[in-house]
C-alpha cells in the first residue's frame, strides 16, 4: 500500500517502512494516537511571556539593556522611542481576566440566585452566555475553571431561573458540547443536568 502512495520522484528522506520515526512532531492530540498513548498538548502556559528573551521585554529594558550588546542597545533605545502601546501587550492580562471572570461569574450567580428576593433572568442569561462561551473552548481552561463553569451550570439548572435554559442558542451550544469528541465527563454531566432541567424537556415529557 505504501508503495502506491509514496512519491517516486521525491522519495521520503526517512523511509516510514523502517519505523515510525519521521520529521513530523506530534504537538496536539485529544484521544491518544499511535505516536502518543495519552492526550497531548505541548502549548506553553498562557502566563509565559511572548518575549522569548526577558532582556527584550520592554518591562525589563531599563534593567538589563546591556545583555544584547551595543548594537542591540542602540536599536532598543530607538525602538523604545518609537514604541506605541499595542494590543498584544495586554494579552496576558486579558487571559488572566478571562480565567478570573469564571470565578466572579460563579460568585455573582451564587449570590444572585440564593440571596436575592427576585431573580433577574437577564443577569443570569448574561452569565450563562459567558459560561457557554468559555466551555466552547474547554481545552484552554484549567480543571479548576472547568469545574467552576460546570458548577455554575448546575446552579442555574437547579434554580428558579432555569426558564432561560430553553433559549435556542444556549440549547444549540449545549448540544455542540455534548457532541464534541473526548468531552470531559464533568462537562457532559453538567450539560445533561442543563437539558434535563430545561423547560423544553418538561414540555417534551408532558
Amino acid at each position: 500500500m505504501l508503495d502506491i502512495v509514496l512519491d517516486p520522484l521525491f522519495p521520503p528522506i526517512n523511509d516510514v517502512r523502517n519505523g515510525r520515526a519521521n520529521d513530523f512532531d506530534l504537538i496536539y492530540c485529544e484521544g491518544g494516537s499511535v505516536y502518543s498513548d495519552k492526550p497531548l498538548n505541548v502549548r506553553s502556559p498562557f502566563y509565559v511571556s511572548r518575549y522569548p528573551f526577558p532582556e527584550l521585554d520592554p518591562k525589563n529594558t531599563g534593567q538589563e539593556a546591556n545583555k544584547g550588546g551595543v548594537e542591540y542597545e542602540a536599536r532598543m533605545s530607538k525602538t523604545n522611542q518609537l514604541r506605541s502601546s499595542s494590543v498584544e501587550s495586554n494579552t496576558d492580562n486579558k487571559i488572566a481576566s478571562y480565567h478570573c471572570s469564571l470565578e466572579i461569574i460563579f460568585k455573582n450567580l451564587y449570590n444572585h440566585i440564593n440571596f436575592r428576593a427576585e431573580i433577574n433572568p437577564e443577569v443570569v442569561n448574561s452569565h450563562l452566555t459567558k459560561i457557554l462561551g468559555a466551555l466552547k473552548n474547554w481545552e484552554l481552561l484549567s480543571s479548576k475553571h472547568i469545574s467552576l463553569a460546570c458548577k455554575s451550570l448546575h446552579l442555574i439548572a437547579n434554580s428558579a431561573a432555569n426558564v432561560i435554559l430553553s433559549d435556542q442558542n444556549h440549547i444549540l451550544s449545549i448540544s455542540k458540547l455534548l457532541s464534541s469528541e473526548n468531552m470531559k465527563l464533568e462537562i457532559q454531566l453538567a450539560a445533561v443536568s442543563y437539558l434535563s432541567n430545561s423547560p423544553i424537556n418538561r414540555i417534551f415529557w408532558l
Partner: protein
Amino acid sequence: MFRNLDDILNAIGSKPSETYWVVQKYIERPLLYLGRKFDIRVWVLITNKREVFFYKHGYIRTSSDTYDTKNKNNYVHLTNNCLQKFGDNYGKHEEGNTLSFDSLLEFLKQAFPNLQINFEKHVVSKMKDFVIDSYLSWKKNLNPNKRKNVFELFGYDFLLDEDLRTWLIEVIGYYPMQLYLNLKHQ
C-alpha cells in the same frame, strides 16, 4: 495596506456584501534579514483523528528589496513567492528568495551575539503555540463530513519582530509545493 480607519472602511465598503474580511495589524518593525523583510513558512498536518503534526523543516521566504516603511512597493513588504517571482530582483540575493532554518539561526546568532538563541525553544515553540491555538479555534469546521483516513495540510506563515517575538501572519489550506520540494531536493 492602509494608514487610517477611513481607508479601511472605504475598502471594506467596496467589497461584495456578505463577505468577511480580517483587518490585521501591520508589523511595522519586523526583524530584517540583511536589511530585507522575511517570513517563516512551516507545514502543519492535521488528521481525521485530530492529531496535529508540526513539520520540522520549515523555510524562510525573503523579500527582494530593502525594507522601508515609506516605500509602498509590494516587493518590499510581501514575501509571498507568488508575488516575488515577478520582481526584478527575484533570486538576486537568495535562490528562489528562500533560506533554510539553519541559515536563519546562523544569522540570528550573528545579529544577537550576546543572546543564547535556541531556535527550537525561542522560535519553534512559539510557532507551535500559535498552531495549537488556531487549530482549537477552527477544529469544529475541519473534516465536516467525518471522513476516515484523511488529513489536511496547512501552510503557516510567521514573522519575527525586532524583539524576536513570533507573530502568526496567515494560515493557508492550499499551496503549490514545487518550490519547496526543489529546495528540499537540493
